[in-house]
Protein backbone atom coordinates (compact mmCIF):
# COMPACT_ATOMS: atom_id res chain seq x y z
CA UNK A 1 0.00 0.00 0.00
CA UNK A 2 1.62 3.21 -1.09
CA UNK A 3 1.72 6.21 1.21
CA UNK A 4 1.19 8.94 -1.35
CA UNK A 5 -0.92 8.00 -4.34
CA UNK A 6 -1.28 10.30 -7.31
CA UNK A 7 -3.49 9.14 -10.11
CA UNK A 8 -3.99 10.94 -13.40
CA UNK A 9 -2.96 14.40 -12.18
CA UNK A 10 -3.29 17.18 -14.73
CA UNK A 11 -2.54 20.87 -14.46
CA UNK A 12 -3.48 23.53 -16.97
CA UNK A 13 -2.26 27.10 -17.03
CA UNK A 14 -4.04 29.96 -18.76
CA UNK A 15 -2.25 30.74 -22.00
CA UNK A 16 -3.36 33.52 -24.30
CA UNK A 17 -7.05 32.99 -25.01
CA UNK A 18 -7.02 29.36 -24.02
CA UNK A 19 -4.92 27.20 -21.76
CA UNK A 20 -2.13 24.72 -21.98
CA UNK A 21 -1.43 21.46 -20.27
CA UNK A 22 1.76 21.59 -18.20
CA UNK A 23 1.10 18.31 -16.36
CA UNK A 24 -0.68 15.63 -18.38
CA UNK A 25 -2.13 12.68 -16.54
CA UNK A 26 0.74 12.02 -14.17
CA UNK A 27 0.35 8.96 -11.96
CA UNK A 28 2.89 7.99 -9.35
CA UNK A 29 3.12 6.44 -5.93
CA UNK A 30 5.45 7.09 -3.05
CA UNK A 31 5.96 4.59 -0.26
CA UNK A 32 6.60 5.32 3.39
CA UNK A 33 10.29 6.00 3.88
CA UNK A 34 10.99 5.95 0.17
CA UNK A 35 12.94 8.47 -1.88
CA UNK A 36 11.42 8.79 -5.32
CA UNK A 37 13.32 10.70 -7.94
CA UNK A 38 11.67 12.85 -10.58
CA UNK A 39 14.00 13.70 -13.46
CA UNK A 40 13.43 15.85 -16.47
CA UNK A 41 14.61 19.16 -17.77
CA UNK A 42 13.19 22.60 -17.09
CA UNK A 43 9.65 22.89 -18.35
CA UNK A 44 9.00 19.17 -18.11
CA UNK A 45 6.40 19.68 -15.39
CA UNK A 46 8.37 18.38 -12.40
CA UNK A 47 7.90 21.46 -10.27
CA UNK A 48 4.29 21.92 -11.37
CA UNK A 49 3.51 18.36 -10.27
CA UNK A 50 4.95 19.10 -6.84
CA UNK A 51 3.29 22.50 -6.52
CA UNK A 52 -0.03 20.88 -7.40
CA UNK A 53 0.25 18.65 -4.33
CA UNK A 54 0.48 21.73 -2.11
CA UNK A 55 -2.04 23.77 -4.13
CA UNK A 56 0.74 26.29 -4.72
CA UNK A 57 0.05 26.70 -8.41
CA UNK A 58 0.20 30.11 -10.11
CA UNK A 59 -2.97 32.19 -10.35
CA UNK A 60 -5.44 30.83 -12.89
CA UNK A 61 -3.99 27.33 -12.86
CA UNK A 62 -6.41 24.44 -12.80
CA UNK A 63 -5.76 21.07 -11.20
CA UNK A 64 -7.62 17.82 -11.85
CA UNK A 65 -6.88 14.35 -10.57
CA UNK A 66 -8.66 11.02 -10.29
CA UNK A 67 -6.96 10.48 -6.98
CA UNK A 68 -4.65 12.48 -4.71
CA UNK A 69 -4.38 10.45 -1.58
CA UNK A 70 -2.01 10.65 1.35
CA UNK A 71 -2.25 7.64 3.64
CA UNK A 72 -6.04 7.43 3.94
CA UNK A 73 -6.66 11.14 3.43
CA UNK A 74 -8.12 12.52 0.22
CA UNK A 75 -6.03 15.60 -0.48
CA UNK A 76 -8.58 17.06 -2.88
CA UNK A 77 -11.19 17.28 -0.15
CA UNK A 78 -9.15 19.11 2.49
CA UNK A 79 -8.00 22.72 2.62
CA UNK A 80 -4.46 23.51 1.43
CA UNK A 81 -3.77 24.98 4.88
CA UNK A 82 -4.17 21.62 6.53
CA UNK A 83 -1.74 20.01 4.09
CA UNK A 84 1.09 22.53 3.81
CA UNK A 85 3.71 22.05 6.48
CA UNK A 86 1.62 19.55 8.46
CA UNK A 87 1.50 16.71 5.96
CA UNK A 88 3.64 17.78 3.04
CA UNK A 89 6.43 20.34 3.00
CA UNK A 90 8.53 21.63 0.16
CA UNK A 91 12.10 22.85 0.05
CA UNK A 92 13.57 24.44 -3.00
CA UNK A 93 16.70 24.98 -4.94
CA UNK A 94 18.38 27.98 -3.45
CA UNK A 95 18.32 27.97 0.35
CA UNK A 96 19.65 31.54 0.46
CA UNK A 97 16.56 32.74 -1.39
CA UNK A 98 14.24 30.42 0.52
CA UNK A 99 15.04 32.05 3.84
CA UNK A 100 13.75 35.48 4.75
CA UNK A 101 16.80 37.75 5.05
CA UNK A 102 15.50 39.83 7.95
CA UNK A 103 14.57 37.00 10.31
CA UNK A 104 16.78 34.71 12.36
CA UNK A 105 16.69 30.95 11.90
CA UNK A 106 14.93 30.78 15.26
CA UNK A 107 12.19 33.12 14.02
CA UNK A 108 11.69 31.05 10.85
CA UNK A 109 11.17 27.75 12.62
CA UNK A 110 9.29 29.34 15.48
CA UNK A 111 6.74 30.77 13.05
CA UNK A 112 6.00 27.33 11.61
CA UNK A 113 5.74 25.80 15.09
CA UNK A 114 3.46 28.59 16.21
CA UNK A 115 1.26 28.07 13.17
CA UNK A 116 0.87 24.32 13.50
CA UNK A 117 1.29 23.43 17.17
CA UNK A 118 -0.03 24.81 20.44
CA UNK A 119 3.37 24.70 22.11
CA UNK A 120 4.12 27.72 24.29
CA UNK A 121 7.04 30.02 23.67
CA UNK A 122 9.42 28.10 25.91
CA UNK A 123 8.58 24.72 24.40
CA UNK A 124 8.91 26.11 20.91
CA UNK A 125 12.38 27.39 21.75
CA UNK A 126 13.40 23.93 22.90
CA UNK A 127 11.81 22.36 19.82
CA UNK A 128 13.76 24.69 17.51
CA UNK A 129 17.05 23.59 19.06
CA UNK A 130 16.05 19.92 18.80
CA UNK A 131 15.14 20.34 15.14
CA UNK A 132 18.40 22.08 14.32
CA UNK A 133 20.24 19.31 16.06
CA UNK A 134 18.23 16.69 14.16
CA UNK A 135 19.28 18.09 10.79
CA UNK A 136 22.91 17.87 11.83
CA UNK A 137 23.68 21.51 12.56
CA UNK A 138 26.46 21.90 15.11
CA UNK A 139 25.85 24.24 18.02
CA UNK A 140 22.08 24.70 17.46
CA UNK A 141 21.83 27.55 19.95
CA UNK A 142 24.34 29.66 18.08
CA UNK A 143 22.84 28.80 14.67
CA UNK A 144 19.32 29.64 15.89
CA UNK A 145 20.39 33.22 16.56
CA UNK A 146 21.99 33.67 13.15
CA UNK A 147 20.50 35.42 10.16
CA UNK A 148 20.45 33.49 6.87
CA UNK A 149 23.31 35.45 5.32
CA UNK A 150 25.54 34.52 8.24
CA UNK A 151 25.31 30.81 7.38
CA UNK A 152 26.90 28.76 4.61
CA UNK A 153 24.75 27.31 1.83
CA UNK A 154 24.78 23.85 3.36
CA UNK A 155 23.80 25.16 6.77
CA UNK A 156 21.03 27.24 5.19
CA UNK A 157 19.63 24.18 3.43
CA UNK A 158 19.74 22.22 6.69
CA UNK A 159 17.87 25.06 8.39
CA UNK A 160 15.24 25.03 5.62
CA UNK A 161 14.85 21.28 6.06
CA UNK A 162 14.44 21.76 9.82
CA UNK A 163 11.77 24.36 9.11
CA UNK A 164 10.01 22.05 6.65
CA UNK A 165 9.90 19.18 9.11
CA UNK A 166 9.06 21.22 12.21
CA UNK A 167 5.32 20.67 11.98
CA UNK A 168 5.65 16.95 11.48
CA UNK A 169 5.28 16.68 7.71
CA UNK A 170 5.73 13.08 6.61
CA UNK A 171 6.33 13.89 2.97
CA UNK A 172 9.10 16.20 1.86
CA UNK A 173 9.19 17.56 -1.64
CA UNK A 174 12.78 18.48 -2.36
CA UNK A 175 12.87 20.53 -5.54
CA UNK A 176 16.48 20.53 -6.74
CA UNK A 177 17.70 20.74 -3.13
CA UNK A 178 21.38 20.50 -3.98
CA UNK A 179 21.64 22.35 -7.27
CA UNK A 180 22.82 25.61 -5.75
CA UNK A 181 25.34 23.93 -3.45
CA UNK A 182 28.98 22.87 -3.76
CA UNK A 183 29.52 19.25 -4.68
CA UNK A 184 30.91 18.32 -1.26
CA UNK A 185 28.00 20.02 0.48
CA UNK A 186 25.62 18.37 -1.98
CA UNK A 187 26.69 14.95 -0.79
CA UNK A 188 26.13 15.90 2.83
CA UNK A 189 22.62 17.17 2.18
CA UNK A 190 21.83 13.95 0.31
CA UNK A 191 23.21 11.99 3.28
CA UNK A 192 20.92 14.00 5.53
CA UNK A 193 17.89 13.12 3.39
CA UNK A 194 18.94 9.46 3.58
CA UNK A 195 19.23 9.52 7.35
CA UNK A 196 15.91 11.35 7.76
CA UNK A 197 14.27 8.71 5.64
CA UNK A 198 15.74 6.00 7.85
CA UNK A 199 15.21 7.69 11.20
CA UNK A 200 11.84 9.38 10.67
CA UNK A 201 10.46 7.17 7.91
CA UNK A 202 10.25 10.37 5.87
CA UNK A 203 9.05 9.98 2.31
CA UNK A 204 10.85 12.20 -0.16
CA UNK A 205 9.98 13.34 -3.67
CA UNK A 206 13.38 14.35 -4.97
CA UNK A 207 13.15 16.53 -8.05
CA UNK A 208 16.36 16.87 -9.98
CA UNK A 209 17.79 17.21 -13.41
CA UNK A 210 20.97 15.58 -12.13
CA UNK A 211 20.98 11.84 -12.70
CA UNK A 212 24.02 11.39 -10.45
CA UNK A 213 22.06 12.84 -7.52
CA UNK A 214 19.09 10.63 -8.30
CA UNK A 215 21.28 7.52 -8.60
CA UNK A 216 22.91 8.25 -5.27
CA UNK A 217 19.84 8.32 -3.04
CA UNK A 218 16.67 7.28 -4.85
CA UNK A 219 14.95 3.93 -4.78
CA UNK A 220 12.79 4.48 -7.81
CA UNK A 221 12.73 7.17 -10.44
CA UNK A 222 10.23 8.64 -12.86
CA UNK A 223 11.34 10.45 -15.99
CA UNK A 224 9.20 13.37 -17.09
CA UNK A 225 9.05 14.94 -20.53
CA UNK A 226 6.71 17.69 -21.61
CA UNK A 227 4.36 17.17 -18.69
CA UNK A 228 4.16 13.41 -18.96
CA UNK A 229 5.88 10.51 -17.28
CA UNK A 230 7.72 8.66 -20.04
CA UNK A 231 9.51 6.09 -17.95
CA UNK A 232 9.33 4.76 -14.43
CA UNK A 233 11.15 2.02 -12.53
CA UNK A 234 13.89 1.30 -10.05
CA UNK A 235 16.93 3.51 -10.35
CA UNK A 236 19.02 0.57 -11.45
CA UNK A 237 16.71 -0.59 -14.20
CA UNK A 238 16.15 2.90 -15.57
CA UNK A 239 19.83 3.78 -15.62
CA UNK A 240 21.09 0.44 -16.85
CA UNK A 241 18.32 -0.43 -19.27
CA UNK A 242 16.36 2.67 -20.28
CA UNK A 243 13.42 2.03 -22.56
CA UNK A 244 12.30 5.39 -23.70
CA UNK A 245 14.53 7.10 -26.29
CA UNK A 246 14.41 10.32 -24.28
CA UNK A 247 15.81 8.59 -21.21
CA UNK A 248 18.54 7.08 -23.35
CA UNK A 249 19.39 10.49 -24.77
CA UNK A 250 19.38 11.99 -21.28
CA UNK A 251 21.74 9.31 -19.99
CA UNK A 252 24.02 9.69 -22.97
CA UNK A 253 24.28 13.41 -22.24
CA UNK A 254 25.53 12.76 -18.72
CA UNK A 255 29.10 14.06 -18.38
CA UNK A 256 29.98 11.18 -16.03
CA UNK A 257 29.62 8.65 -18.85
CA UNK A 258 31.36 10.80 -21.30
CA UNK A 259 34.66 9.76 -22.80
CA UNK A 260 37.23 12.49 -23.03
CA UNK A 261 37.92 13.68 -26.55
CA UNK A 262 34.46 13.12 -28.00
CA UNK A 263 31.85 15.83 -28.16
CA UNK A 264 29.31 15.57 -25.35
CA UNK A 265 25.99 14.36 -26.77
CA UNK A 266 22.99 16.58 -26.26
CA UNK A 267 19.33 15.69 -26.04
CA UNK A 268 17.82 16.17 -29.47
CA UNK A 269 15.50 19.11 -29.50
CA UNK A 270 12.88 16.98 -31.22
CA UNK A 271 12.01 15.54 -27.83
CA UNK A 272 11.16 18.91 -26.52
CA UNK A 273 7.89 20.65 -27.25
CA UNK A 274 6.63 17.60 -29.14
CA UNK A 275 2.90 18.07 -29.29
CA UNK A 276 3.37 20.69 -26.65
CA UNK A 277 1.87 24.10 -26.91
CA UNK A 278 4.78 26.18 -25.75
CA UNK A 279 4.98 29.94 -25.64
Amino acid at each position, binding site marked *: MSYLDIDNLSVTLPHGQGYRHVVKGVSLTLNKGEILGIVGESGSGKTMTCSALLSLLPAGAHRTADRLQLDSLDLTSVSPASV*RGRLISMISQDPAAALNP*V*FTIQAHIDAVLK*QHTDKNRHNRRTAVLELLDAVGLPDPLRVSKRYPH*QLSGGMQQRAVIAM*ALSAGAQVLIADEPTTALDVSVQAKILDLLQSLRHNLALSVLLVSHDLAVIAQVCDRVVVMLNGEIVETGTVQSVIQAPHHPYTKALLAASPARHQRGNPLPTVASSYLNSGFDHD
Partner: protein
Amino acid sequence: MGTLSALLRRLLMTLVVIVCVSIITFLATRLLPTDPAALYAGPRASAEKIDAARLALGLDKPLVSQYLTFAGDALRGDFGVSFRTRQPISADIARFLPATLELIVAAMFLALVIGIPLGVIAAARPEGKLDQVLRLFAISLASIPGFWVAMILQLVFFKWLNWLPLSGRVSTETMLFSPIESITGMGTVDALITRNWVAFRDAFAHLILPALTLSLYPIGLALRMTRGAMGAVMSERHITTARAMGLSQSTILFRFALKNAIVPVLTVLGLTFAFSLTGAVLVEVIFDWPGLGAYVTAAILAVDFPVIMAVTLVGTVIYVGINFLVDLAQAMLDPRVRLS
Protein backbone atom coordinates in the same frame (compact mmCIF):
# COMPACT_ATOMS: atom_id res chain seq x y z
CA MET B 1 33.53 47.77 11.94
CA GLY B 2 31.71 47.98 15.23
CA THR B 3 28.18 49.30 15.42
CA LEU B 4 29.22 51.92 17.95
CA SER B 5 31.97 53.46 15.86
CA ALA B 6 29.65 53.42 12.85
CA LEU B 7 27.08 55.20 14.95
CA LEU B 8 29.59 57.85 15.99
CA ARG B 9 30.70 58.38 12.40
CA ARG B 10 27.10 58.79 11.37
CA LEU B 11 26.57 61.35 14.13
CA LEU B 12 29.66 63.25 13.04
CA MET B 13 28.35 63.40 9.48
CA THR B 14 25.08 64.73 10.84
CA LEU B 15 26.97 67.54 12.58
CA VAL B 16 28.83 68.39 9.38
CA VAL B 17 25.51 68.70 7.54
CA ILE B 18 24.18 71.06 10.20
CA VAL B 19 27.30 73.26 10.04
CA CYS B 20 27.13 73.39 6.24
CA VAL B 21 23.48 74.39 6.26
CA SER B 22 24.19 77.08 8.86
CA ILE B 23 26.95 78.54 6.63
CA ILE B 24 24.73 78.48 3.56
CA THR B 25 21.78 80.13 5.32
CA PHE B 26 24.09 82.73 6.80
CA LEU B 27 25.71 83.55 3.47
CA ALA B 28 22.36 83.69 1.68
CA THR B 29 21.09 86.40 4.00
CA ARG B 30 24.29 88.40 3.57
CA LEU B 31 24.50 88.03 -0.20
CA LEU B 32 20.93 89.05 -0.92
CA PRO B 33 20.66 92.64 -2.16
CA THR B 34 18.38 93.54 0.77
CA ASP B 35 20.23 95.37 3.54
CA PRO B 36 19.53 93.78 6.92
CA ALA B 37 20.41 97.01 8.73
CA ALA B 38 17.78 98.94 6.76
CA LEU B 39 15.22 96.27 7.53
CA TYR B 40 16.11 96.32 11.19
CA ALA B 41 15.97 100.09 11.40
CA GLY B 42 12.47 100.17 9.92
CA PRO B 43 10.85 101.58 6.78
CA ARG B 44 11.28 105.31 7.43
CA ALA B 45 14.64 105.27 9.20
CA SER B 46 17.24 107.97 8.59
CA ALA B 47 20.69 107.14 7.26
CA GLU B 48 22.16 107.64 10.74
CA LYS B 49 19.68 105.24 12.24
CA ILE B 50 20.54 102.62 9.63
CA ASP B 51 24.25 103.04 10.36
CA ALA B 52 23.53 102.70 14.05
CA ALA B 53 21.59 99.50 13.33
CA ARG B 54 24.52 98.24 11.25
CA LEU B 55 26.82 98.71 14.24
CA ALA B 56 24.33 97.21 16.66
CA LEU B 57 23.91 94.11 14.51
CA GLY B 58 27.67 93.82 13.98
CA LEU B 59 27.24 94.01 10.22
CA ASP B 60 30.38 96.16 9.89
CA LYS B 61 32.59 93.27 11.02
CA PRO B 62 34.17 90.75 8.59
CA LEU B 63 31.87 87.97 7.38
CA VAL B 64 33.83 85.26 9.16
CA SER B 65 33.54 86.87 12.56
CA GLN B 66 29.87 87.63 11.88
CA TYR B 67 29.30 83.96 11.15
CA LEU B 68 31.15 82.87 14.28
CA THR B 69 29.07 85.20 16.40
CA PHE B 70 25.89 83.92 14.76
CA ALA B 71 26.92 80.26 15.16
CA GLY B 72 28.05 80.75 18.76
CA ASP B 73 24.79 82.43 19.71
CA ALA B 74 22.78 79.78 17.88
CA LEU B 75 24.61 77.04 19.78
CA ARG B 76 23.48 78.64 23.01
CA GLY B 77 19.95 78.77 21.65
CA ASP B 78 20.05 82.50 21.00
CA PHE B 79 18.84 83.44 17.54
CA GLY B 80 18.56 87.18 18.24
CA VAL B 81 15.38 89.17 17.84
CA SER B 82 12.90 89.29 15.01
CA PHE B 83 13.23 92.40 12.80
CA ARG B 84 9.48 92.47 12.53
CA THR B 85 8.26 91.96 16.07
CA ARG B 86 11.43 92.68 18.11
CA GLN B 87 10.63 89.49 20.06
CA PRO B 88 13.39 87.02 20.95
CA ILE B 89 13.21 84.35 18.24
CA SER B 90 14.08 81.48 20.58
CA ALA B 91 11.00 82.20 22.67
CA ASP B 92 8.85 82.30 19.53
CA ILE B 93 10.21 79.01 18.28
CA ALA B 94 9.77 77.43 21.71
CA ARG B 95 6.13 78.38 21.44
CA PHE B 96 5.41 77.50 17.80
CA LEU B 97 7.58 74.43 17.27
CA PRO B 98 5.86 72.17 19.84
CA ALA B 99 2.46 73.02 18.33
CA THR B 100 3.69 72.00 14.89
CA LEU B 101 5.43 68.88 16.21
CA GLU B 102 2.25 67.80 17.99
CA LEU B 103 0.33 68.14 14.75
CA ILE B 104 2.91 66.34 12.61
CA VAL B 105 3.48 63.51 15.06
CA ALA B 106 -0.28 62.90 15.18
CA ALA B 107 -0.49 62.99 11.36
CA MET B 108 2.48 60.63 10.95
CA PHE B 109 1.01 58.28 13.53
CA LEU B 110 -2.17 58.10 11.43
CA ALA B 111 -0.10 57.47 8.31
CA LEU B 112 1.69 54.59 10.03
CA VAL B 113 -1.37 52.89 11.48
CA ILE B 114 -3.68 53.49 8.49
CA GLY B 115 -1.47 53.79 5.41
CA ILE B 116 0.85 50.87 6.03
CA PRO B 117 -1.78 48.22 6.92
CA LEU B 118 -3.92 49.28 3.94
CA GLY B 119 -0.86 48.95 1.69
CA VAL B 120 -0.26 45.45 3.02
CA ILE B 121 -3.90 44.48 2.46
CA ALA B 122 -3.76 45.84 -1.08
CA ALA B 123 -0.70 43.69 -1.79
CA ALA B 124 -2.46 40.50 -0.64
CA ARG B 125 -4.18 40.13 -4.01
CA PRO B 126 -2.33 42.09 -6.67
CA GLU B 127 -4.69 43.60 -9.23
CA GLY B 128 -7.67 42.37 -7.22
CA LYS B 129 -10.74 44.50 -6.62
CA LEU B 130 -9.51 45.69 -3.23
CA ASP B 131 -6.09 46.51 -4.66
CA GLN B 132 -7.64 48.71 -7.33
CA VAL B 133 -9.99 50.44 -4.91
CA LEU B 134 -7.15 51.14 -2.49
CA ARG B 135 -4.92 52.42 -5.27
CA LEU B 136 -7.62 54.89 -6.27
CA PHE B 137 -8.04 55.80 -2.60
CA ALA B 138 -4.30 56.44 -2.21
CA ILE B 139 -4.12 58.60 -5.31
CA SER B 140 -7.17 60.58 -4.17
CA LEU B 141 -5.68 61.18 -0.73
CA ALA B 142 -2.39 62.33 -2.14
CA SER B 143 -3.94 64.63 -4.73
CA ILE B 144 -6.93 66.26 -3.00
CA PRO B 145 -5.87 69.72 -1.82
CA GLY B 146 -5.57 69.85 1.97
CA PHE B 147 -7.24 73.22 2.37
CA TRP B 148 -10.37 71.96 0.62
CA VAL B 149 -10.55 68.84 2.77
CA ALA B 150 -9.99 71.01 5.84
CA MET B 151 -12.99 73.16 5.05
CA ILE B 152 -15.19 70.17 4.25
CA LEU B 153 -14.18 68.54 7.55
CA GLN B 154 -15.00 71.75 9.40
CA LEU B 155 -18.33 71.94 7.65
CA VAL B 156 -19.24 68.35 8.49
CA PHE B 157 -17.80 67.86 11.97
CA PHE B 158 -18.28 71.36 13.35
CA LYS B 159 -21.19 72.94 11.59
CA TRP B 160 -23.44 69.98 10.80
CA LEU B 161 -22.62 67.38 13.42
CA ASN B 162 -21.05 69.70 15.98
CA TRP B 163 -18.87 66.87 17.25
CA LEU B 164 -15.54 68.63 17.03
CA PRO B 165 -14.32 72.19 17.56
CA LEU B 166 -13.77 74.47 14.58
CA SER B 167 -10.20 75.60 15.22
CA GLY B 168 -7.57 76.56 17.78
CA ARG B 169 -5.69 74.34 20.23
CA VAL B 170 -8.01 74.51 23.26
CA SER B 171 -11.36 76.10 24.00
CA THR B 172 -11.73 79.25 26.07
CA GLU B 173 -13.39 77.31 28.90
CA THR B 174 -10.36 75.08 29.23
CA MET B 175 -8.01 78.05 29.17
CA LEU B 176 -10.00 79.69 31.97
CA PHE B 177 -11.03 76.79 34.21
CA SER B 178 -8.51 74.01 33.65
CA PRO B 179 -5.49 75.58 31.98
CA ILE B 180 -2.77 73.25 30.73
CA GLU B 181 0.54 73.65 32.50
CA SER B 182 3.14 74.00 29.75
CA ILE B 183 5.90 71.41 29.99
CA THR B 184 6.62 70.23 26.47
CA GLY B 185 4.41 72.82 24.80
CA MET B 186 2.35 70.07 23.18
CA GLY B 187 -1.15 70.50 24.58
CA THR B 188 -2.29 66.88 24.58
CA VAL B 189 1.02 65.63 25.98
CA ASP B 190 1.15 68.23 28.76
CA ALA B 191 -2.47 67.55 29.74
CA LEU B 192 -1.67 63.85 29.83
CA ILE B 193 1.45 64.32 31.97
CA THR B 194 -0.37 66.55 34.45
CA ARG B 195 -3.43 64.26 34.38
CA ASN B 196 -5.63 67.16 33.45
CA TRP B 197 -8.29 64.97 31.82
CA VAL B 198 -10.78 67.72 31.04
CA ALA B 199 -8.09 69.64 29.19
CA PHE B 200 -6.81 66.49 27.51
CA ARG B 201 -10.22 65.71 26.06
CA ASP B 202 -10.48 69.25 24.81
CA ALA B 203 -6.96 69.45 23.37
CA PHE B 204 -7.40 66.04 21.73
CA ALA B 205 -10.68 67.09 20.14
CA HIS B 206 -8.96 70.17 18.76
CA LEU B 207 -6.13 68.07 17.35
CA ILE B 208 -8.30 65.61 15.41
CA LEU B 209 -9.34 67.65 12.36
CA PRO B 210 -6.02 69.38 11.62
CA ALA B 211 -4.09 66.15 12.20
CA LEU B 212 -6.48 64.25 9.96
CA THR B 213 -6.15 66.88 7.22
CA LEU B 214 -2.37 66.85 7.44
CA SER B 215 -2.29 63.05 7.47
CA LEU B 216 -4.15 62.56 4.17
CA TYR B 217 -1.10 62.98 1.97
CA PRO B 218 1.21 60.81 4.09
CA ILE B 219 -1.50 58.13 4.39
CA GLY B 220 -1.80 58.00 0.60
CA LEU B 221 1.97 58.01 0.26
CA ALA B 222 2.50 55.28 2.85
CA LEU B 223 -0.23 53.19 1.24
CA ARG B 224 1.32 53.40 -2.21
CA MET B 225 4.88 52.92 -1.01
CA THR B 226 3.91 49.93 1.13
CA ARG B 227 1.90 48.40 -1.70
CA GLY B 228 4.80 48.82 -4.12
CA ALA B 229 7.47 47.45 -1.80
CA MET B 230 5.22 44.57 -0.73
CA GLY B 231 4.54 43.70 -4.36
CA ALA B 232 8.24 43.13 -4.91
CA VAL B 233 8.71 41.17 -1.68
CA MET B 234 5.69 38.92 -2.24
CA SER B 235 7.19 37.51 -5.42
CA GLU B 236 10.38 36.46 -3.65
CA ARG B 237 11.20 32.83 -3.08
CA HIS B 238 11.13 32.98 0.71
CA ILE B 239 7.45 33.91 0.57
CA THR B 240 6.75 30.76 -1.46
CA THR B 241 8.73 28.80 1.13
CA ALA B 242 6.66 30.33 3.92
CA ARG B 243 3.52 29.30 2.02
CA ALA B 244 4.81 25.77 1.43
CA MET B 245 5.40 25.43 5.17
CA GLY B 246 1.79 26.38 5.81
CA LEU B 247 2.19 29.82 7.38
CA SER B 248 -1.07 31.75 7.35
CA GLN B 249 -1.64 34.59 4.92
CA SER B 250 -1.70 37.16 7.73
CA THR B 251 1.59 35.92 9.22
CA ILE B 252 3.18 36.00 5.79
CA LEU B 253 1.85 39.47 4.93
CA PHE B 254 2.18 41.36 8.19
CA ARG B 255 5.22 39.66 9.66
CA PHE B 256 7.41 38.03 7.05
CA ALA B 257 6.84 40.32 4.09
CA LEU B 258 6.22 43.63 5.82
CA LYS B 259 9.51 43.62 7.69
CA ASN B 260 11.24 43.41 4.32
CA ALA B 261 9.12 46.13 2.77
CA ILE B 262 8.83 48.73 5.49
CA VAL B 263 12.20 50.51 5.27
CA PRO B 264 11.53 52.62 2.14
CA VAL B 265 8.13 53.54 3.61
CA LEU B 266 9.76 54.81 6.79
CA THR B 267 12.26 56.77 4.70
CA VAL B 268 9.61 58.70 2.78
CA LEU B 269 7.52 59.25 5.89
CA GLY B 270 10.64 60.71 7.51
CA LEU B 271 11.07 63.09 4.60
CA THR B 272 7.40 64.06 4.73
CA PHE B 273 7.73 64.70 8.46
CA ALA B 274 10.60 67.10 7.90
CA PHE B 275 8.80 68.79 5.03
CA SER B 276 5.65 69.30 7.12
CA LEU B 277 7.62 71.31 9.71
CA THR B 278 7.26 74.38 7.57
CA GLY B 279 4.98 72.96 4.88
CA ALA B 280 1.85 72.71 6.99
CA VAL B 281 1.06 76.41 6.63
CA LEU B 282 -2.35 76.01 5.02
CA VAL B 283 -3.53 73.56 7.64
CA GLU B 284 -2.18 75.77 10.41
CA VAL B 285 -3.89 78.85 9.03
CA ILE B 286 -7.26 77.21 8.41
CA PHE B 287 -7.37 75.62 11.85
CA ASP B 288 -5.84 78.64 13.54
CA TRP B 289 -3.08 76.41 14.83
CA PRO B 290 -0.17 78.54 16.04
CA GLY B 291 2.60 76.59 14.35
CA LEU B 292 5.97 77.11 12.76
CA GLY B 293 4.63 77.20 9.20
CA ALA B 294 2.52 80.31 9.73
CA TYR B 295 5.33 81.89 11.73
CA VAL B 296 7.96 81.43 9.05
CA THR B 297 5.58 82.45 6.27
CA ALA B 298 5.01 85.79 7.97
CA ALA B 299 8.77 86.14 8.41
CA ILE B 300 9.45 85.41 4.74
CA LEU B 301 6.91 88.00 3.61
CA ALA B 302 8.61 90.59 5.85
CA VAL B 303 12.13 89.48 4.82
CA ASP B 304 12.75 88.87 8.51
CA PHE B 305 16.24 87.39 8.11
CA PRO B 306 16.99 86.22 11.66
CA VAL B 307 13.69 84.34 11.86
CA ILE B 308 14.20 82.69 8.48
CA MET B 309 17.72 81.63 9.45
CA ALA B 310 16.62 80.33 12.83
CA VAL B 311 13.72 78.30 11.45
CA THR B 312 15.90 76.93 8.66
CA LEU B 313 18.48 75.79 11.19
CA VAL B 314 15.94 74.26 13.53
CA GLY B 315 14.32 72.55 10.55
CA THR B 316 17.68 71.18 9.46
CA VAL B 317 18.47 69.80 12.89
CA ILE B 318 15.09 68.06 13.04
CA TYR B 319 15.45 66.85 9.45
CA VAL B 320 18.84 65.22 9.97
CA GLY B 321 17.68 63.93 13.34
CA ILE B 322 14.72 62.17 11.72
CA ASN B 323 16.96 60.78 9.00
CA PHE B 324 19.30 59.47 11.62
CA LEU B 325 16.40 57.73 13.37
CA VAL B 326 15.22 56.23 10.07
CA ASP B 327 18.73 54.90 9.43
CA LEU B 328 18.81 53.44 12.92
CA ALA B 329 15.44 51.78 12.35
CA GLN B 330 16.69 50.38 9.07
CA ALA B 331 19.79 48.92 10.70
CA MET B 332 17.61 47.37 13.38
CA LEU B 333 15.10 45.93 10.90
CA ASP B 334 17.59 44.58 8.40
CA PRO B 335 20.66 42.77 9.76
CA ARG B 336 22.42 43.08 6.40
CA VAL B 337 22.45 46.85 6.66
CA ARG B 338 25.28 48.29 8.65
CA LEU B 339 25.45 52.00 9.31
CA SER B 340 28.16 53.54 7.22
